[in-house]
């Protein structure tokens, strides 16, 4: 658990990105998929039993959902629920000159608890006042330090640990360096929903699709016969079917859908910015 009393956030929703207010007429967020929802949304008409008598119980479906959640987090490189992270980022001169352009490992950033220069023995050398930190691009994992208010506006920084503007001079001196690995330390929370326990509907869709693929790919190979025939005393009957290929088209559709959702979610929650020394 984390103490989030010092949090800095942009104040808008994480999904839809930058939504300031929503009417509530459209449902876009819901709790994580339940076994009943998994069955009704993705597995209608699918016999959940195997020829040897095994069945998919609700406990099995719950387990599949848990596995799918973890797979979705890996595929998206994002945590579904809000989690707390701490990492160190290098001091890169070109990024430094671009208003200390920092990109967090995890995103979307929901809140920033600390941005500081921290030594290797974890001593806090200088903590950037929250008032200088631009939070508008947190959804894209971006943190910028824009101390324009301090330079041109009020010199009073409320709620910050730095009482004067001496930090600006300090930052200017440090700007002369080219590269320092592990320089900035950031503490932040990241996840795909600012409301704990709620997830965007497309994320639930992805979890459901991954779980359904896993379940169908277990059931399909047990349908082993492609044709069966029976004859007796000159009378015969035969039938043929797809055999283990029974859910091939469905699986292909789900795979395509999975890739499409991943592409869209990555698109809205990440951005590519190129800043370099020339």
């Amino acid at each position, binding site marked *: *658990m984390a103490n989030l009393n010092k949090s800095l956030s942009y104040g808008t929703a994480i999904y839809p990105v930058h939504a300031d207010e929503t009417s509530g007429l459209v*449902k876009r967020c819901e709790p*994580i998929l339940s076994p009943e929802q998994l069955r009704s949304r993705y597995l209608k008409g699918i016999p959940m039993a195997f020829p040897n008598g095994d069945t998919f119980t609700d406990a099995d479906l719950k387990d599949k959902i848990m596995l799918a959640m973890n797979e979705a987090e890996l595929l998206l490189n994002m945590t579904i629920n809000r989690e707390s992270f701490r990492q160190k980022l290098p001091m890169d001169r070109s990024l430094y000159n671009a208003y200390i352009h920092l990109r967090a490992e995890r995103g979307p950033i929901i809140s920033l608890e600390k941005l500081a220069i921290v030594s290797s023995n974890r001593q806090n050398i200088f903590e950037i006042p929250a008032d200088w930190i631009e939070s508008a691009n947190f959804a894209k994992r971006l943190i910028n330090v824009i101390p324009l208010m301090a330079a041109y506006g009020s010199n009073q920084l409320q709620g910050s640990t730095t009482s004067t503007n001496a930090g600006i001079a300090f930052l200017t001196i440090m700007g002369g360096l080219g590269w320092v690995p592990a320089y900035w330390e950031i503490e932040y929370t990241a996840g795909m929903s600012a409301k704990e326990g709620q997830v965007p509907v497309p994320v639930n869709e992805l979890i459901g699709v991954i779980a359904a693929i896993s379940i169908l790919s277990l059931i399909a190979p047990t349908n082993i016969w492609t044709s069966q025939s029976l004859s007796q005393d000159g009378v015969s009957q035969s039938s043929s079917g797809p055999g283990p290929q029974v859910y091939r088209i469905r699986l292909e559709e789900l795979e395509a859908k999975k890739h499409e959702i991943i592409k869209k979610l990555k698109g809205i929650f990440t951005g590519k910015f190129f800043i370099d020394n020339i």
Partner: protein
Amino acid sequence: MKISARVVKNYANINNFSFGNQWEIRANEPNTLYFQLVDSDLASKEGCQFRYIPVGTDIDVNVIFPSIDDDGDLTVAAAPVSAADGSLWKVDLTALQVPASGNVVFELIVDGVTRSFGIVNGIQVEYPGSEGSC
């Protein structure tokens, strides 16, 4: 002995209730959540589980609804439902106690010995009227 818990729904009395996968509640409403302690080690291959009745002089059960935020973490003391069946317990949530959807953790404290266990995705909380963004 591996103690766990099962979500109980539609509770009428100790002989009349059903099991569920998770509690489904709406935020900002008072709710009573029932559960049964079970011994997972005694579960059959088909998934049938045996109830577990703790024995001791001082028995407490806490239900923890986790949160990443210190201020959002919710721990509620459970109460036994009936003296006739020590495996059935309940927690009462006020309208102001809103847990987050997800895992639920239990603490069974018998004569100072604590056992912790959880239910994966044990609760679903809806927010009627404010599900347009999150």
